[in-house]
């Protein structure tokens, strides 16, 4: 009896500590996900919640699912989210003003009602019920037991899911594909345009950026033979951002050009 109590204490206590630290953290992080303004912060908090859920899975004898959760969710899905966020624009912060009048109070009231209902239902279904535990089902190892189920009982859904994955990949490709509305000019066409244009100034190509030997970075305009800076030698994106440097800063006059004879 004492041995049993000790065993239960030893196995249950660390899990309880883990749960009471991580459980509230998960809830707080997901609440913060709703409340923060920037989508990137939401994504980071989401990844945090996913990792906590992975720990929960591993703590509940679902080691395989825990690892898959980390690999698939925090690895692939969240990276995809961040990738799309960067594509769409990081600073596209959400305005938190409500556009439909009275939506927020209604949503919160409904959520409190729904959450209360769900918690009470779950409590009624499970309270006082001793959990069986998975040590018997996982006797040969969690992965082996899952594989046995997946490739016997669930072999047909498994195949269907593979079809679903391929369809999703194709769908994403079709959606992301975008048709050119104008024909892309060929090398020949570009060359003809250069010489038949109004001026022959850029016939030999644009000047490359950088002055002298002291600074040849792309953010300094080149100097034309008459000493004037060529603004179009700097990338248009850099000059639009205001990152173009003044070429005068790299003037050579301050350098001692006198050559001393070696003895």
């Amino acid at each position, binding site marked *: 009896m004492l041995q049993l109590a000790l065993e239960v204490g030893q196995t249950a206590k660390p899990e309880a500590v883990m749960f009471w630290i991580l459980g509230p953290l998960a809830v707080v992080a997901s609440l913060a996900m709703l409340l923060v303004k920037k989508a990137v912060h939401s994504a980071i908090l989401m990844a945090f919640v996913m990792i906590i859920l992975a720990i929960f899975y591993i703590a509940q004898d679902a080691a395989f699912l825990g690892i898959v959760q980390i690999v698939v969710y925090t690895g692939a899905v969240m990276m995809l989210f961040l990738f799309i966020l960067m594509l769409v624009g990081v600073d596209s912060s959400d305005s938190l003003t*409500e556009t439909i009048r009275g939506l927020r109070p209604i949503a919160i009231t409904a959520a409190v009602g729904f959450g209360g209902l769900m918690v009470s239902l779950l409590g009624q279904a499970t309270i006082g019920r001793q959990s069986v535990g998975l040590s018997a089902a996982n006797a040969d190892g969690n992965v082996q037991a899952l594989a046995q189920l997946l490739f016997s009982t669930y072999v047909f859904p498994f195949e269907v899911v593979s079809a679903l994955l391929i369809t999703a990949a194709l769908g994403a490709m079709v959606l992301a594909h975008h048709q050119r509305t104008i024909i892309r000019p060929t090398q020949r066409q570009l060359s003809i345009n250069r010489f038949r244009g109004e001026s022959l100034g850029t016939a030999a190509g644009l000047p490359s950026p950088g002055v002298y030997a002291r600074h040849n970075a792309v953010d300094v305009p080149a100097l034309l033979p008459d000493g004037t800076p060529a603004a179009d030698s700097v990338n248009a994106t850099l000059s639009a951002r205001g990152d173009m440097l003044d070429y005068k800063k790299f003037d050579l006059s301050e350098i001692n050009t006198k050559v001393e004879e070696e003895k």
Partner: protein
Amino acid sequence: MDASNYLYVSALLFTIGAVGVVVRRNAIVVFMCIELMLNAANLSFVTFSRINGDLNGQVMAFFTMVVAACEVVVGLAIIVTIYRSRRSASVDDASLLKR
């Protein structure tokens, strides 16, 4: 510790996710809230599998993950397509059929 505590956490996460879907305007954040709901369902699958001593719940959670991954791929592609044509990822701006 009672395993049903995990179920309460999962119910809370699901509810928070549902509120997010309704309240937030940014399509990407709405999507993340849907992911949160799916994950909450997964957590209760895993917990029920432990309570009942049966691995079927874990297989279900595994399938949910695959479906969620597909849904993310297609959904984000749709968001990118909408963004490309109207320069906005807000769910309120895609209201052409209303007018």
